[in-house]
């Protein structure tokens, strides 16, 4: 009963948070508590509806091959009909669950975290808008609807990164995020336009029918360009190399925002888009290879940076980039199931890690450097427990969630390419190491800053409950999904029934344990001196610490190219454009100077000209009359 209602009214899921945004934004903005209540209650209803939809999907046997679609005509341009609606299949249902769950928990968490902030109401308005946009993106029936919401979540990201707009760094980070993702969005838009031109439709279901036929008849040549352009969007949005630079800077936003947008939901929009358009990508092996290798490279690249970073959120940000690379890798090797499985588990444990980091920073008076924390486990046991679960989950220790999803990715990669498998395994090792480093440095050992340590305290219930819920999810979601046959529902093509590859699972678990032990040895037992190690690996350490100088390289490139182009354009502007304009102006001036003596203000010369005209007309009349007279034979 409720399931059917939820399915039929799935459009309410994104609409409710959007309504909440309008109400808060227009009416209750200045009443913080009331705004929070509105936002949370709307999110709760959305969450319940999402649960209903998921149950309906399971009960109603809605599969990826037979989705539930509702469409309304959105607009027409000429012969192009664009509709808006909801497309519900297991992919959507899973995303709805993830987004509504994390969004609801983060909103509850924010009630405590944003306490006392002057922008309390505004914060909830933006969070609501984001939730609405993200859910609209998830439910999209065609590329244009997806693009619309894609831009909207980008806008929310911009607004929330720059939430502390009075901080210059926050403003700069917001701009950087917006402009960097814009590069990707431009490619995505081009891809969408080319799709429309090629197939005459943007509807996912129609394209799903058309693309294989097109490939069969016309080959893949042009589609590769389209697919690569489409993939540029996910590169920007999901922080893949080389457009990953905005994501670490986006940590300038409030921590709940980092948890919701820059870890769990928005950044996986790119993964979701590739998954949604998998019927296109999977037809093109060349593009799949690009996706796999780009994902793999991003994963190991970001992990190698994360090892040396000191601010807690920055470590987590690079970790997010790395895990997103993992998901892309999984997509690239053709395993939609493992990618989305990892997407789900990652959303839970990464959101929790961010929320824990937020709790720590909250307790430590916004101190971000992990080396200035230390010993917090006694002061903040709940947070410590949550963080530990998160670290174990992301490291891939059984039976935590990350183990199952990561293992599936590794298995899928091993089937396609040993090189990718090795890359992914090394990344997993590094991941376990840097996450353990974060945990050990911040929570173990002795307090580095006694004064701050004394002020530290466990967080309130608003913040504790989401941590606990997410901890539970981080533990059970992996094994539960594994048992419940996740791959039967979220899949592309035939359901993949793979038993656990014990070899691969064993290897990765062993490596993770070694990494944890290594981190223990370095950072807790201090058997090896971390500074000495850093000195020993001097060049590599510096490269990693400075994020491989990517930002500096971009700055230099921009300086060379943009400034160079600007100089050329300036020259063109001054000498050619202005030259043309000046020449036109000069021409007009010359002509008017030639003509202006006629306008001498002398009424008599005007009269003279006028009378001259009269005489000319008269003369013409005489001429015409004489002709007429000759014609008539000399008489009127």
């Amino acid at each position, binding site marked *: 009963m409720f399931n059917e209602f939820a399915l039929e009214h799935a459009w309410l899921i994104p609409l409710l948070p959007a309504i909440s945004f309008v109400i808060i934004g227009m009416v209750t903005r200045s009443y913080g508590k009331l705004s929070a209540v509105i936002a949370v209650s709307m999110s709760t209803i959305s969450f319940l509806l999402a649960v209903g939809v998921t149950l309906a999907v399971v009960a109603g046997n809605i599969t990826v091959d037979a989705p539930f679609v509702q469409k309304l005509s959105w607009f027409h341009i000429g012969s192009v009909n664009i509709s808006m609606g909801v497309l519900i299949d297991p992919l959507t249902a899973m995303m709805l669950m993830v987004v509504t769950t994390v969004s609801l928990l983060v909103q509850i968490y924010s009630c405590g975290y944003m306490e006392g902030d002057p922008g309390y109401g505004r914060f909830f308005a933006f969070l609501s808008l984001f939730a609405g946009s993200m859910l609209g993106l998830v439910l999209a029936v065609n590329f244009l609807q997806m693009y619309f919401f894609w831009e909207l979540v980008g806008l929310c990201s911009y607004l929330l990164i720059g939430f502390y707009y009075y901080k210059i760094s926050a403003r700069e980070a917001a701009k950087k995020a917006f402009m960097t993702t814009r590069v990707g969005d431009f490619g995505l838009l081009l891809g969408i336009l080319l799709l429309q031109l090629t197939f005459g439709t943007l509807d996912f279901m129609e394209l799903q029918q058309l693309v294989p036929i097109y490939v069969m008849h016309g080959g893949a040549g042009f589609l590769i360009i389209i697919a690569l352009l489409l993939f540029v969007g996910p590169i920007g949005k999901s922080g893949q190399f080389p457009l990953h630079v905005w994501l670490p800077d986006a940590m300038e936003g409030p921590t709940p925002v980092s948890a919701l947008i820059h870890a769990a939901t928005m950044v996986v929009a790119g993964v979701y888009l590739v998954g949604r358009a998998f019927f296109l990508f999977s037809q093109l092996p060349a593009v799949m290879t690009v996706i796999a290798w780009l994902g793999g490279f991003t994963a190991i690249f970001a992990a190698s940076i994360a090892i040396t970073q000191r601010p807690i959120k920055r470590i987590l940000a690079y970790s997010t980039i790395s895990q997103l690379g993992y998901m892309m890798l999984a997509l690239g090797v053709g395993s939609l199931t493992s990618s989305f499985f990892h997407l789900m588990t990652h959303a839970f444990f990464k959101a929790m890690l961010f929320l824990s980091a937020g709790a720590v920073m909250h307790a430590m008076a916004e101190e971000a450097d992990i080396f200035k924390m230390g010993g917090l486990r006694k002061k903040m046991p709940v947070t410590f427990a949550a963080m530990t679960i998160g670290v174990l989950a992301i490291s891939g220790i059984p039976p935590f969630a990350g183990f199952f999803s990561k293992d599936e990715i590794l298995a899928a990669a091993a089937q396609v390419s040993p090189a990718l498998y090795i890359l992914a395994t090394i990344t997993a090792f590094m991941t376990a190491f840097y996450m353990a480093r974060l945990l050990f440095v911040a929570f173990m050992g002795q307090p580095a800053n006694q004064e701050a340590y004394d002020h530290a305290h466990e967080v309130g219930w608003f913040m504790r409950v989401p941590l606990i819920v997410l901890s539970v999810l981080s533990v059970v979601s992996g094994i539960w999904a594994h048992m419940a046959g996740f791959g039967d529902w979220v899949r592309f093509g035939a359901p993949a029934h793979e038993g656990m590859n014990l070899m691969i699972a064993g290897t990765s678990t062993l490596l993770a344990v070694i990494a944890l032990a290594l981190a223990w040895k370095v950072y807790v037992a201090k058997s090896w001196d971390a500074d000495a190690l850093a000195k020993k690996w001097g060049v590599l350490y510096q490269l990693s610490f400075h994020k491989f100088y990517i930002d500096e390289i971009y700055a230099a490139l921009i300086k060379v190219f943009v400034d160079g182009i600007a100089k050329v354009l300036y020259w063109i502007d001054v000498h050619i454009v202005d030259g043309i304009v000046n020449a036109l102006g000069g021409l007009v001036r010359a002509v008017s100077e030639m003509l*202006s003596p*006629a*306008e*001498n*203000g*002398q*009424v*008599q010369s005007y*009269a*003279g000209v006028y*009378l001259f005209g009269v005489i000319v007309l008269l003369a013409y009349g005489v001429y015409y009359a004489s002709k007429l007279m000759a014609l008539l034979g000399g008489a009127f």
Partner: protein
Amino acid sequence: MSIGLTHYLLLAAMLFAIGMFGVLSKRNIIAVLMGIELMLNAVNINLVAFNRFMPVHDLTGQLMALFAIVVGVAEVAIGIALAFRIYRDRNTINVDELNRMKG
């Protein structure tokens, strides 16, 4: 040779041309007005001559001339008033100097 319409028309044309010459070539605004009066009179001569020589059955031409005279008198009254006003405001009635409309 009898005097006919052609002669009157030629006379009127010459008078009109002389008035036109005055309008175009004199500096004094009063003299310009005089030229205009000469032109008006030339037109009136035409009207009366047409009435006299063309095959018509009433005095419409003369009546027309009468109205033209009325309008001409009104025009001269306004013209003189304007000239007077310009003289008082700008202390000149030299048409050459009245070139504020110069572009």
